[in-house]
């Protein structure tokens, strides 16, 4: 994995803002895999994932001139924000155009669970567990955990109520805790 750090990254950004294609390619090579992982937590279908990533990167490079480099990590955070916004837009569009009822609410099948120990569970396995969450739960979970939004912000972004956001996060957490516990049991047996 390529890494751009400090002044090198700043210089690359400046070149890309000036229209340097090589600089844009460098940014793509450095962050595309990371952004693909972020995007796949929201949009699981491969065809949708490709479309969202393409639209996101086009917006990134079209608006790169508006980005102000403020140190290491600022570019990564800005890129992730653009991708997440694009993924949420796709979810909202899908919700509007879907002829099938888009289920944000699931029957309450989970009971209270204790915290599960995530320690030895591979990141890929956790990623798959997150992808297996229902669409509504998954969006709330991702926004709360990875984007560190509060329930009011999540409710505004997803067009739901705060109480719905809180209950879906609770259910998503419970599902993940159960899955992690089951995974650890299987590994112990194995």
């Amino acid at each position, binding site marked *: 994995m390529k890494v751009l750090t400090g002044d090198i990254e700043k210089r690359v950004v400046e070149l890309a803002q*000036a229209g340097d294609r090589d600089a844009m390619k460098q940014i793509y090579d450095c962050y595309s895999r990371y952004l693909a992982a972020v995007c796949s937590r929201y949009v699981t279908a491969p065809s949708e994932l490709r479309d969202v990533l393409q639209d996101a990167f086009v917006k990134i490079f079209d608006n790169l001139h508006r980005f*102000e480099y403020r140190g290491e990590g600022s570019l990564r955070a800005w890129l992730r924000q653009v991708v997440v916004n694009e993924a949420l837009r796709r979810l909202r569009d899908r919700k509007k155009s879907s002829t099938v009822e888009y289920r944000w609410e699931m029957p309450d099948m989970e009971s209270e669970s204790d915290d599960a120990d995530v320690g030895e*569970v591979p*990141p890929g396995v*956790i990623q798959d567990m997150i992808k297996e969450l229902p669409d509504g739960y998954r969006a709330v979970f991702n926004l*709360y955990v990875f984007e560190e939004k509060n329930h009011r912000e999540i409710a505004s972004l997803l067009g739901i109520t705060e109480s719905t956001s809180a209950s879906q996060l609770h259910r998503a*957490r419970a599902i993940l805790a159960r899955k992690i516990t089951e995974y650890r049991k299987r590994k112990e047996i194995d």
Partner: protein
Amino acid sequence: MDRMLDSIKKKMDSYEESVPEGLWDDIVSSVSVPEPSRKRVAIMPWVWSTLAAAAVAAVVVFLSVNHPSDTLQTISDNLSVVGQDNPATSQPNPSSSVQIEEVRAADDDHCAEKGSQARLGSLVAQATVVEGDVQGHDVPDEPEEVELAEDETRVAVESDSDPVDSEILRSVPHTSHDGEDWSGRMSASADGRHRPSFLPESAGAVFSGALTQSQMESVFDPKSLYHGAPQSSGKDDEQETVQNRPLRKVPASRIPAVTTDTKHYRPIRVAAMARWKFNDILGVESGVAWTILNSKITTSSGDLTTTEDKQQLQYIGIPINLSASFLNGRAVSLYASGGGMAEKCVSAVVRHREYVSDSKVSSSSDRISVDPLLWSVNAGLGVQANVMERFGIFLEPGLSYHFNDGSDVQTIYKEHPLDFMMTFGLRVSFR
């Protein structure tokens, strides 16, 4: 965030996945690469000059458009000649109906000095009866007879509807003007019923106050003013001289009212601003603003005399505003702004013109001084056309509140401290 969720976040922080095949090629074909900056620099001078010409044209257009904020004030005054002494005639013509006498208010003891000659004192060239000021007094045509004392000159003003003042007693002090004949100055007729018609002599003095205040005030005691031409008492008395005849009360309809019309035009402001961004939304801006305040005060007395004053104040101000962008498009930006400004008057000119029967008889120009700073606060919404990356032309309608600067100059800000404001100009944004 609880422990489990926090652990998940940390574990997934650097997780990556494979990218779909051919994604970069699709991205490159869709990205519109901006033009090299060299080309932008090459066209800048041409763009600057075009924008400058457009800004000048916009200023000219705005200056030629009047949006008056009318303030119409009509005041009826009791006019008087202040401090003017007219000599009494030493040899009064018995046939003359003009009587020159000193008149004072019944409760004015300051002029209570005895004398044998009447003179026109500090009051009365022209009088008017103003409704509401006379306390409902009627104006009888014929006053009652007056019996004059040897060393006193009395004018009895009697009216059945005037319960307060049944007699105005005056004493005539001696002056150096005693014996002068002013009868020819008055318009008079043999029957004593014609009253002299005087033009208002204090119009100029009164109007000078309009420079500092937009309202003229009436401060005269009406009881001392309601006299016009003297009239015959009907007595065939050789001792009844011109000076001794009572003066007739003049109907108010014959006295022209003084009308003052004040117009404050909508302020015009042009600004050059520079903005420093905190982030994509918030920023602070400052610059220089040039504001022009125009006012026109027109005073008319009857159908003859008109005085027109055009006042123009120019302010240079330094605004400091916070702004929040809620739409940052490539071509257009929308934002909200609020802050304050301190302005200094750098030019204050009053152009004075007098007209008599629609003919200009005089004109002059005076500079006045407005020393205090003018402080204001404002808030507004703005739209900016982003001509270049950091350069735009903006139009910002909003509200402003101007605090009283304590000066005597009347402007639209004094009458409408909270008012609509339109600002347009150029803005440079810095990161």
